[in-house]
């Protein structure tokens, strides 16, 4: 019965998120047989080079909207749909409230009435943009460390406004403009333009630059005052073409690889016209982008999809090496984005935790345990799949930045929790897995709000071997000590609530010792592997760098607990207290030392977590003070001597 329950819960929980995930639509399929998919799904699958890596437009859109508004969707509209509007029809986004201003003082300074939701539209900010530019210029002169919160916010909002504005211009080249209006039908005819049309785009004229040049040869022969109306018109068109190519250079949205085989640069469509229009393939790709713009406007979904597919195929055939490999992982990344596996894992961990808490009230709590365990297993499944997808997408081990340490530590702690539960069978493992999985994925979610979490590696980290050994073992060490600390919490709570249940106390104590031992071994292994890596990279095994010292502190702390235990200076309660404080040591080594902003591990620096860390330490001290005093009242001593 119990086994059946586990299987049913697993199937239900595994199936649910897959229903929400959209099917993978691989790139590179035949152009002649476009699939019946939503046009914007195709658009989201276009490859784009951003932040040093090739990614799908879907990821780009999410990151951009996250940067501007702090959210990955806008009023139930997906990020990619919003980006499409921003690029193809910018004016439709002017009233979208996408600019988050966290500080009301900043909004007030810009002459905007502070909004309770803290989000403002481009129309609202446009009136105060001159003021914003002025304030940002002044704030920029101040040393970054000395800026106030308002000044920081002004700079951030200003850069976001510029970024937004630059995106609105990306596809201007394909839209008809008054600057390219041609009233003279002779010119229209000479340039081989549609005779019934008078309003043209930059692209229309740039693609007929040769014809235009032929027409303007006579300009050099005559003085400007002697030019005819037609010649003046031709000069105006040439002049406008030149000014556009200058004004709209270096725009974002780099979706066209530079034609030279050795170059890794990608260009925005406008830059591609200015710099690489002579290349026939680039010319063809720009024409396809233009078709996208036109068909988006005309609501021609089939044509839109066809243009995108042709465009993507052309890009795939043109790039080689790592870029090609990156493009081939785009379907995985689309699935990763859409399935939101970490989100589902977090929900399942929270549900398991909820069942654990509910079990205190339930009469038949033994029946609830397999359900909770199944939820944890299902959560772990999503957790592992998500990490595996990240490995496939990036082609490297899963931990290289602070965000990734949280998701990896979360996975190891859940795995440890399941192991404990299978041995202990007393809810200890479920509660550890539930709390750790939920908490670490929640913290990771906060870091994910900073932008794209799949980032490129700095030169010193560019070693899959050391990332796969040192970093994984050190983070596994963090996991072990965190699990020991959590079991330590449970031990103290058991001392308070069930002081006479010696079997349960002994079992929890053994789990705690096991987890602490695992933490010590992995921390030691990770630290020494780090020493060897440092010896390979920097020429010394040990350099007293803050991050190295942090790892040493964990080892020393574990060694102190074990030696104190062997010498009977502390008993099980003392070990529990030490294990709880071990989490504080891990927090310090993990991201506390990053707050110092000194040392060689600068790629891991972060800010803004100091308050959270201090509050956590204060909370633990309070818990230990109250918990230990009650436990001692229940005749459980800290020491054994």
């Amino acid at each position, binding site marked *: 019965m119990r086994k059946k329950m586990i299987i049913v819960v697993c199937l239900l929980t595994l199936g649910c998120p897959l229903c929400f995930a959209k099917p993978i639509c691989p790139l590179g399929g035949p152009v002649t047989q476009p699939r019946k998919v939503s046009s914007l799904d195709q658009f989201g699958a276009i490859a784009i080079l951003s932040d*040093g890596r090739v990614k799908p437009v879907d990821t780009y859109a999410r990151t951009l909207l996250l940067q501007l508004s702090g959210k990955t969707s806008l009023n139930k509209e997906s990020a990619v749909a919003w980006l499409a509007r921003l690029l193809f029809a910018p004016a439709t986004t002017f009233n979208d409230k996408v600019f988050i201003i966290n500080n009301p003082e900043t909004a007030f300074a810009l002459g905007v009435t502070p909004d309770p939701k803290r989000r403002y539209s481009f129309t609202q900010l446009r009136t105060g943009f001159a003021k914003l530019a002025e304030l940002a210029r002044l704030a920029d002169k101040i040393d970054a460390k000395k800026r106030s919160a308002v000044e920081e916010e002004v700079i951030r909002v200003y850069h976001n406004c510029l970024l937004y504005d630059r995106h609105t211009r990306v596809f201007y080249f394909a839209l008809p403009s008054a600057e390219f209006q041609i009233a003279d039908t002779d010119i229209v005819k000479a340039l081989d333009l549609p005779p019934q049309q008078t309003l043209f785009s930059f692209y229309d004229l740039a693609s007929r630059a040769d014809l235009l040049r032929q027409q303007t040869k006579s300009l050099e022969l005559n003085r400007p005052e002697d030019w005819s109306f037609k010649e003046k018109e031709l000069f105006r068109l040439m002049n406008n073409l030149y000014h556009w190519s200058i004004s709209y250079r270096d725009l974002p949205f780099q979706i066209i690889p530079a034609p030279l085989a050795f170059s890794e640069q990608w260009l925005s469509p406008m830059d591609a016209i200015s710099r690489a229009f002579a290349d026939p393939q680039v010319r063809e790709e720009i024409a396809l982008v233009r078709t996208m713009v036109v068909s988006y406007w005309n609501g021609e979904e089939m044509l839109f999809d066809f243009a995108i597919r042709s465009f993507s195929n052309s890009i795939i055939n043109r790039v080689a090496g790592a870029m090609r490999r990156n493009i081939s992982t785009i379907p995985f990344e689309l699935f990763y984005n859409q399935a939101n596996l970490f989100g589902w894992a977090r929900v399942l961990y929270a549900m398991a935790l909820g069942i654990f808490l509910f079990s205190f009230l339930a009469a038949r709590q033994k029946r609830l345990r397999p359900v909770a365990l199944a939820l944890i297993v299902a959560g772990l499944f999503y957790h592992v799949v998500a990490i595996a997808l990240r490995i496939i997408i990036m082609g490297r081990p899963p931990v290289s930045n602070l965000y990734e340490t949280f998701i990896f530590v979360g996975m190891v702690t859940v795995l440890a929790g399941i192991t404990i539960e299978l041995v202990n069978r007393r809810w200890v493992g479920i509660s550890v897995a539930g709390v750790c999985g939920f908490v670490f994925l929640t913290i990771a979610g906060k870091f994910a709000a900073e932008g794209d979490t799949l980032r490129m590696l700095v030169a010193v980290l560019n070693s899959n071997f050391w990332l796969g050994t040192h970093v994984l073992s050190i983070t596994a060490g963090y996991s072990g000590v965190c699990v020991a600390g959590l079991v330590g919490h449970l031990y103290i709570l058991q001392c308070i609530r069930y002081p006479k249940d010696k079997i349960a106390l002994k079992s929890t104590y053994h789990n705690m010792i096991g987890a602490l031992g695992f933490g010590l071994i992995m921390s030691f292994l990770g630290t020494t592997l780090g020493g060897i*890596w440092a010896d390979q990279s920097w020429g010394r095994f040990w350099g*007293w760098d803050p991050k190295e010292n942090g790892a040493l502190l964990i080892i020393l702390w574990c060694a102190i607990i074990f030696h104190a235990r062997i010498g009977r*200076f502390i008993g099980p309660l003392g070990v529990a207290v030490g294990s709880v404080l071990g989490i504080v040591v891990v927090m310090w080594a993990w991201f506390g030392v990053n707050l110092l902003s000194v040392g060689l591990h600068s790629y891991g620096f972060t800010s803004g977590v100091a308050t959270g860390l201090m509050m956590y330490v204060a909370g633990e001290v309070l818990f230990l003070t109250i918990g230990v005093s009650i436990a001692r009242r229940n005749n459980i001593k800290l020491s054994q001597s």
Partner: protein
Amino acid sequence: MMMTTIHKRLQRNPAIKFCASLKITLTCLTLLFILTFWGTIDQVYNGLYLSQERFFHSFFFTFAGFIPFPGTQLVLWVLFINLICVALVRFVYAWDHLGITIIHAGLLLFFVAAYITFHNTKESQLTLMEKEGSNVSSAYHDWEVALWKEDGGVKDVYAYDTRGLRSGEKLDFSDYDLELTVNHYYPHSEAYSGGTGGILNASGIQALQPAPRQQAPEKNFPGLVATLAGLGPVLLYGGEDKPLKITHQSQDYFLQLRRKHSPMPFLLRLKDFKVEWHPHTQVARSYQSLVDVIVPDGSLQGPLGPFRLSGSREVLISMNKPLRYKDFTLYQASYAIDQWGRESSTLAVVKNSGRLLPYLASFTTVIGLVLHFLLMVFKAKLKH
């Protein structure tokens, strides 16, 4: 039988018994914990170099002006003695304690490795412009007073280490019939061009003032005022690029206070330096120095013997891929581009004869930890 007798006799020895106390172990571990934490925080205010000197390389230091506190060196020595005594009298040498024994053997190896590395490692750096070669690296923090003459492009250099240099000390360059008497030596100094004049100096510096020690050791420049027998007072400052040229017995000599030079048993020539960036970012993907390694062969004279400038081999030095040659290891450390756009690469040069000891210690300790963990699990299973 005999071993047991010795073991029992050692166990009865009160000094060894005291030194093997677990209380000492715990005290040392706790002190190490405090020192590591304190030394980490201190780096924010005083920088890595000064914090290392104060907390980790010292036997004692004072805080709040006068309160003494044991330094890491002292604590590690006490812990080392404690560990030896524990190994002599407390350890149970049985199969079920094999893991513990191996762990502590590995830790003892760590102590030996730390001692050898600390006392024998020589760290220096070598900066080369593209197409430039050298077989001499210069130290980060150590300085020397060097005197040389140039004869047909070959430098014959005599140098004195400035560590512990005191007023009144005589530096004897008897091969050149020259003697330098130290008047003042400042390990950290500032140079001034003002003064009464009359002091020989290559850059017009006429006075030195002792200066506070800077956080970054590379910003500290020593200064020396000395009397050169028969030639008068001279002033040497570490921040000078040019050496002081002196003429003695119709021969030109050069005198300079410079970062300590160390010859290498091979010549290195930088062929090309390359830095690669992740596209559209300011994040470097790799730094690479393509060098020619030219080993001694016989046709040219160098400081350590003859060299041949042909038959070289190419080596690509990059992050995580250093060049190893005997006890020397060269790492990619930094690079610079001058105002004319010429690239130079700086390589960290480390000479460490005990380089593999920490590897061995790490391996031993980890094996011990894993074995102990497995034995614990096995014993628990047996109990059940």
